[in-house]
């Protein structure tokens, strides 16, 4: 059983006003095949948590640890973490001019597996995933995310999730900006990945909507850089009805 364990994670960023503490001791344990939803107000540090796990250089770890099956991830470079089995579906995927989707995917797959995929099987997998995500074949020859609509970018993230087969994935607002049809398609992709590989998921969202399609095992309320409360799926419903007011009352949100 794989386990991703986040313990007392403290993270800051450099701002023009100086160092700003954002994560103030995050504890989370995600087991293989589990889905954890993280909900919380804007600016509470959800993306910061996602980026810190992936190793974005802008976020400075002040303390704590992130281990994957006991191995410390925070000492590793971004690409090493990915090769160890971590994946981040980004809130705002960037465009990569001059690099085609197919070249990018093949290069990433080769890097993750340590060897180039067998051509025939690879093309088959790629075709199957793309058609399941309703992505036209022409996307293969387009440059990564260049000129993609918001929804197309999100599908492209899930395409990578399916093909790269990580152990744990952080999905940062993958549902934002999707219409109902696209939401279903993307959710099905996540569920497929989960069924096929026992993927553990940290699903960051503002909305209950996606949780109807991707069933969470746990819901965590994220406020002011830490987990303020956790519960089962029923907590998400309560949050949607009540908002975050009762959590914000006592805390000073920066």
């Amino acid at each position, binding site marked *: 059983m794989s386990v991703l364990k986040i313990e007392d994670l403290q993270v800051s960023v450099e701002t023009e006003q100086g160092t700003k503490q954002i994560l103030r001791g995050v504890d989370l344990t995600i087991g293989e095949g589990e889905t954890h939803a993280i909900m919380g107000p804007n600016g509470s540090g959800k993306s910061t948590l996602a980026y810190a796990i*992936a190793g*974005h*250089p802008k976020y400075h770890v002040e303390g704590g640890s992130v281990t994957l099956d006991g191995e410390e991830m925070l000492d590793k470079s971004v690409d090493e973490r990915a090769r160890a089995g971590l*994946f981040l579906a980004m809130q705002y995927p*960037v465009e990569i001019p*001059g*690099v085609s989707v197919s070249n990018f995917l093949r*290069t990433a797959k080769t*890097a993750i597996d340590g060897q180039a995929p067998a051509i025939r099987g690879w093309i088959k997998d790629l075709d199957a995933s793309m058609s399941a995500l309703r992505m036209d074949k022409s996307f293969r020859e387009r440059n990564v995310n260049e000129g993609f609509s918001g929804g197309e970018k999100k599908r492209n993230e899930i395409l990578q999730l399916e093909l*790269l087969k990580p152990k744990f994935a952080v999905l940062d607002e993958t549902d934002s900006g999707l219409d109902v049809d696209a939401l279903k398609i993307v959710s099905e992709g996540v569920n497929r990945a989960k069924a096929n590989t026992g993927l553990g998921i940290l699903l960051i969202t503002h909305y209950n909507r996606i949780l109807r399609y991707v069933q969470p095992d746990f819901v965590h309320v994220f406020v002011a850089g830490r987990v303020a409360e956790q519960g089962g799926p029923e907590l998400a419903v309560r949050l949607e009805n009540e908002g975050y007011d009762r959590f914000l009352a006592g805390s000073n949100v920066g």
Partner: protein
Amino acid sequence: MASETTAPLIERPEHPEPAQHGLQAHSDGGSAFVPVQTRSERFTSTSPEDFAAVTGLEFEWKFAPLATIKHLTEGPLDGSPAAFSYTESGGTTVGWIDRTDALIGAAGAPEERASANAWSAAENALHIQVSGEEAGELTVRRDRFDATARAAHVVIEALPNSAGTVILEHSGPANLAENVEIVVGDNARLTVVTVQEWDDDAIHLSSHFARVGRDASLRHVVVSLGGKAVRVNPSVHLVEQGASIESFGLYFADAGQYIEQRPYIDHVAANTRSRVNYKGALQGAGAHTVWVGDVLIGPHADGTDSYEQNRNLVLSEGTRADSIPNLEIETGNIVGAGHASSTGRFDDEQLFYLQSRGITEEEARRLVVRGFLAEIIQQIGSPALEERLAAAVEAELLQSQGLAGEVV
């Protein structure tokens, strides 16, 4: 991060401001800008005395490192024939012709002082003739120059109905001003590729003049990788109906390197077509590239179809890419005319994105640069050269990464 313009300019601005990118401080006197008159009315002469001494304020010279190149605009130049080598190829001949030969001046005349200086100093001209109807490929290796300030003149002639590829490969030291004339006969199909892989301290100012005949097509490719200051300015005159030009460029400037190119497409006759596409990468402190693309659609050039673009990829801080498209249209009756110019940074977010998919930093950079420049390399049409240049670009990338690593 990329800026883009696709709407055609209907009138040439009197003072086209350069699209400026890069992080280095920029301090040239914008007011000393020489007004650009209609490109076709620009003064031409084959004698350097007819041009005023170069001050660096002229539009032609305002970006160039004048201290490095000025001697080529006014100093004495050794115009004796320089040694070269070439690969034999069917349907082509190579030899020297006299400077009084009728071919000299057939494709154009100098518009600036270095070009005129070279014109008047060159004692004779290297004549490359393509006569075969089956496309052959000829490579001329010009790798035996030295530090002496020299002048050269080259004439590439494709006879009517001929087809072929002429590759000029440049390496070794150079301190060279030259003119290259390209005469494409009626119905001929000619590809000219000029590759600059000079030594680090080489200086090369080259003016290309092309005259493209009726229903003839020219593919012109400029590849500039090595040298301290390298400038290749192709002027292409589409003088007969149905003439067409595909003008491509690829350049990679690393620390301290200056690379310039000013393609000028002159649509004279009706139903002529042009495509211009230059792409450049910059990496390292002081890497500077300049692209000025002029397209003139003359009063008789009805039915012109034209598009020009320049794209730059900035790989590190401390570089500067100037990119200036100019489109001048003197007839209303055209098929199309457009231009685009963009300079984008290879930024940390791209690097993070690729790395977060398991790709190492080095591989990520290679992927982006290779992808970006591949579009041009694929246009060369000589598989062996394409492969070699793809490798050369990668070597550039690794080399300048290595240097960057030492500084840190």
